[in-house]
């Protein structure tokens, strides 16, 4: 099917029309300057000292739709080794639990250089009255270790 235009996988030859379209995209639909700046600043989020807690459950993807609930809370589970984090995000805010239960200091991050502490009890249960808007991650300090969840979008 492929004409001479395509080579294996590194790239492909261009038609003049496509090249013109590429220039048009660069002019009319470029990456907004603000977003480029934020992406450059995101280098600060490269944190070698923290353990990464991977998202292992997201009700948006893995959940079964609940009949009759038009705006169900979003359930998230993150894992970093033995530690896991259950989080529930709704319009009312955010609640969660560190497992196994343990005292922890927890912060909500909403971008490079932004950290807002959350109230947490001795069992690692935490709450926030305000739901995160946009990209967020949680940073957890427990037992001399720092764990950060994968960034996602609320």
């Amino acid at each position, binding site marked *: *099917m492929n004409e001479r235009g395509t080579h294996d996988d590194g790239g492909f030859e261009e038609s003049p029309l496509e090249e013109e379209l590429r220039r048009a*995209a660069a*002019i009319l639909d470029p990456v907004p300057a603000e977003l480029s700046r*934020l992406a450059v600043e995101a280098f600060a989020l*490269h944190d070698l000292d923290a353990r990464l807690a991977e998202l292992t459950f997201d009700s948006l*993807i893995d959940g079964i739709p609940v009949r009759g609930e038009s705006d169900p809370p979003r359930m998230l589970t993150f894992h970093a080794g033995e530690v896991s984090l259950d989080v529930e995000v709704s319009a009312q805010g955010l609640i969660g639990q560190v497992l196994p239960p343990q005292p922890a200091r927890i912060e909500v991050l909403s971008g490079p250089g932004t950290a807002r502490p959350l109230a947490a009890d001795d069992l690692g249960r935490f709450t926030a009255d305000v739901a995160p808007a946009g*990209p967020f991650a949680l940073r957890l300090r427990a037992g001399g270790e720092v764990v950060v969840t994968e960034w996602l979008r609320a």
Partner: protein
Amino acid sequence: MDRTDVGALVQSAADGDAGAWKALVEGLGPLVWSVVRAHGLSDADAHEVYQTAWFRFAQHLGRLREPEKAGSWLASTARHECLKVFRASRRWTPTDDPQVLDRVSEDRTPEESVLDSEEAAAQSERVRRLWQEFEALGERCRQLLRVLIASPQPSYQEVSAALGIAVGSIGPTRQRCLRRLRARLESRGAV
């Protein structure tokens, strides 16, 4: 940025080189942006997905199994976040809303301002007409071409990761979509 440099740049960035990171943002940012634009998100959603993809990439820098495929990693991450936007129905925004797509004149980029000068008026008109015809293509063609025309041009692997389509289907679809676009332009005497 040459795509062959990506692996080395990722390595340098993981070792703390901010310049390498900046080069990655410059070289792969347009690809990530093309993915969110191809999915037709509202501006607000597009901005958040774009940031999320880069924030997560920063976290995974030193952990990528195949650093040379960072473009595919970012494209795939952006795509999955786009799909989550659609899943969260409360955030659903129609993809074919002409008001959303017809956003060309709102924020003037410096390049656009140049286009506005009188000498460039004719060229500007041509670019706008081309873009208009491109946006009037069917969804599948618009999606594929939007990613293909990111700068610098993405590899087929990256396009595949960006749209969840087989590498083998890209070439034929691309040819067909370009033919369609050319036909539209010709029928309006724009070529």
